[in-house]
């Protein structure tokens, strides 16, 4: 039987919209799960994805991708490639797997919500593929590390991390719950697929894929490149949703949804990708700094695309540009100093040659951040590495859940005050790292005010005993799993501090 060209049947099979007669529109699309923002249903029915695919094509494509990927995995598994990875890269991959793998399953829940509560049949069709995509990503990113467990037992954090109360995972869950698990389908299309996936996952997945290939980790590079091909497709659910909102006069709604999630995504990417690019990737394999990646992929390409829809850069744009100079350097210091609280071995990335690179990419780095490494390096050389380990905890932000590093921004000359921002609400004190984080919280206090940060739990008696070992146990970190210096302090002995540094 002759087959019809796809264009002759595609619209008919995916556009199964109809008027409800036995139930109300509100019953089918409750606002909590699908906030239509008052846009008429016929407008939603114009939803048109820029990238078309049928189920048969989808299965064919995905099967081909998996065949290639598992071939690479099978070959690499029999080699010594993994054993020869440099410590910094190992740190980056362990961090990635723990932070991302199970979150992909969670994203599958989000896609499933859009597959049911998306306001148009064509959208629900695309979201179904998105749900399958995210399930695939969860499976791949737990299976690949599982295959290498005999080489690095902490790769089990690819599965374990999400089920713990490790502080970074509390931050990740807080973000992802806000973005999809506790979000409605329409808002999610703007915040997950447009803001996060179109804007940011390119940075994590394309950037890290390129770095992975350079360091020789072809397994990881092939994995995340394959994942990104799915992301690039299902991320396109955002654009038609955005167009409909703007065309219906809901530009302010779209702008607000975008602004809230763009800032939140920035904070987590500064923590995850910022450290990987500027500190964990071996120096000889770095092509761009994190700031350069941000400027090229996010600030230029993505924001230009955003402006094409008639929207504006977020109100906090200057603060974002400001933080790009310093915040991830502070986060790296924090992760290194509090390394027992993470499941990977952070490398300092502060040997003389690395410091010279940082100074070149971030002029003034030695004076503003090198000074901390000078003190820590001196303590190591004096035989007191214990002075580079924590005896208390950093206070974390009640929005992003990341330690408050405002003093670093002040000390480096980028902030006018080292003080965090405080908010007293309903008898409880909340602390924030920045105006945008406080603003995010205040946009929807009901969404956030009941959440307990790791510090709130510590002070509230949830963590027992209230000691460092008690907190590590609460985070699911046994002594064998706690992070240690990734190079056994080799950085501190590499040579004397570089010329131009402070504290020499």
């Amino acid at each position, binding site marked *: 039987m002759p087959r019809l060209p796809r264009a002759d049947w595609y619209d008919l099979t995916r556009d199964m919209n109809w008027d409800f007669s036995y139930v109300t529109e509100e019953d089918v699309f409750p606002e909590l799960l699908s906030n239509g923002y008052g846009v008429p249903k016929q407008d939603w029915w114009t939803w048109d994805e820029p990238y078309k695919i049928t189920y048969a094509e989808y299965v064919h494509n995905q099967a081909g991708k998996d065949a290639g990927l598992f071939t690479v995995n099978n070959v690499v598994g029999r080699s010594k490639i993994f054993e020869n990875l440099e410590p910094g890269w190992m740190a980056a991959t362990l961090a990635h797997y723990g932070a991302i793998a199970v979150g992909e399953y969670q994203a599958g829940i989000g896609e499933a919500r859009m597959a049911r509560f998306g306001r148009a049949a064509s959208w629900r069709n695309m979201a179904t593929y998105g749900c399958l995509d995210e399930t695939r990503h969860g499976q791949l990113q737990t299976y690949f590390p599982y295959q290498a467990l005999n080489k690095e037992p902490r790769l089990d954090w690819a599965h374990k991390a999400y089920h713990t109360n490790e502080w970074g995972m509390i931050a990740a869950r807080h973000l992802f719950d806000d973005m999809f698990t506790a979000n409605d389908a329409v808002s999610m299309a703007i915040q997950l697929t447009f803001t996060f996936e179109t804007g940011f996952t390119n940075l994590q997945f394309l950037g890290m894929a390129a770095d992975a290939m350079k360091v020789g980790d072809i397994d990881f590079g092939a994995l995340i490149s394959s994942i990104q091909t799915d992301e690039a497709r299902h991320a396109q659910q955002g654009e038609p949703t955005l167009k409909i909102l703007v065309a219906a006069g809901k530009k302010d709604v779209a702008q607000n949804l975008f602004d809230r999630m763009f800032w939140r995504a920035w904070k987590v990417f500064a923590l995850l990708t910022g450290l990987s690019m500027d500190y964990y990737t071996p120096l000889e394999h770095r092509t761009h700094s994190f700031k350069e990646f941000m400027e090229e992929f996010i600030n230029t390409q993505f924001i230009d695309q955003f402006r094409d829809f008639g929207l504006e850069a977020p109100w906090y744009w200057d603060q974002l540009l400001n933080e790009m100079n310093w915040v991830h350097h502070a986060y790296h*210091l924090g992760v290194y100093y509090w390394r027992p609280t993470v499941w990977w071995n952070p490398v300092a990335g502060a040997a003389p040659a690395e410091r010279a690179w940082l100074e070149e990419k971030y002029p003034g780095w030695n004076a503003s951040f090198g000074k901390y490494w000078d003190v820590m390096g001196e*303590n190591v050389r004096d035989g007191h590495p214990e*002075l580079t380990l924590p005896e208390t905890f*950093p206070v974390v932000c009640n929005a992003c859940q990341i330690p408050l590093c405002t003093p670093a921004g002040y*000390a480096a000359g980028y902030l006018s005050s080292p003080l965090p921002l405080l908010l007293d609400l309903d008898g409880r*004190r909340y602390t924030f790292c920045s105006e945008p984080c406080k603003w995010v919280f205040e946009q929807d206090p009901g969404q956030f005010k009941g959440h307990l940060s790791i510090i709130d739990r510590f*002070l509230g008696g949830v963590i027992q005993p209230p000691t460092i070992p008690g907190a590590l146990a609460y985070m699911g970190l046994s002594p064998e799993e706690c992070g240690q210096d990734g190079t056994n302090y080799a950085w501190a002995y590499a040579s004397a501090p570089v010329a131009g540094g402070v504290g020499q």
Partner: protein
Amino acid sequence: MALFPVQGIVEGDFVVVLVPVDDTDLMTVVAEKIAYHGIGKRVAAQDRPFKVRWNGTVLADDSTIATTGCAPMDVLEVVYA
């Protein structure tokens, strides 16, 4: 005497830390307790005395948490005099 958590910042440091002090501690003791977590560890020591600053005001050495009216989780800065 009661345990009293504050947010501590050491001048020149990069992070805000959780510091348990006692509400009867003199500010000199509070300063030492906060400084302990930063000076000599991430911040180079200076041969100068330091003070506690709260809401922009330097607190008297002989004042205590209780007498100043600080609230739990207020931000206290340790600054060089």
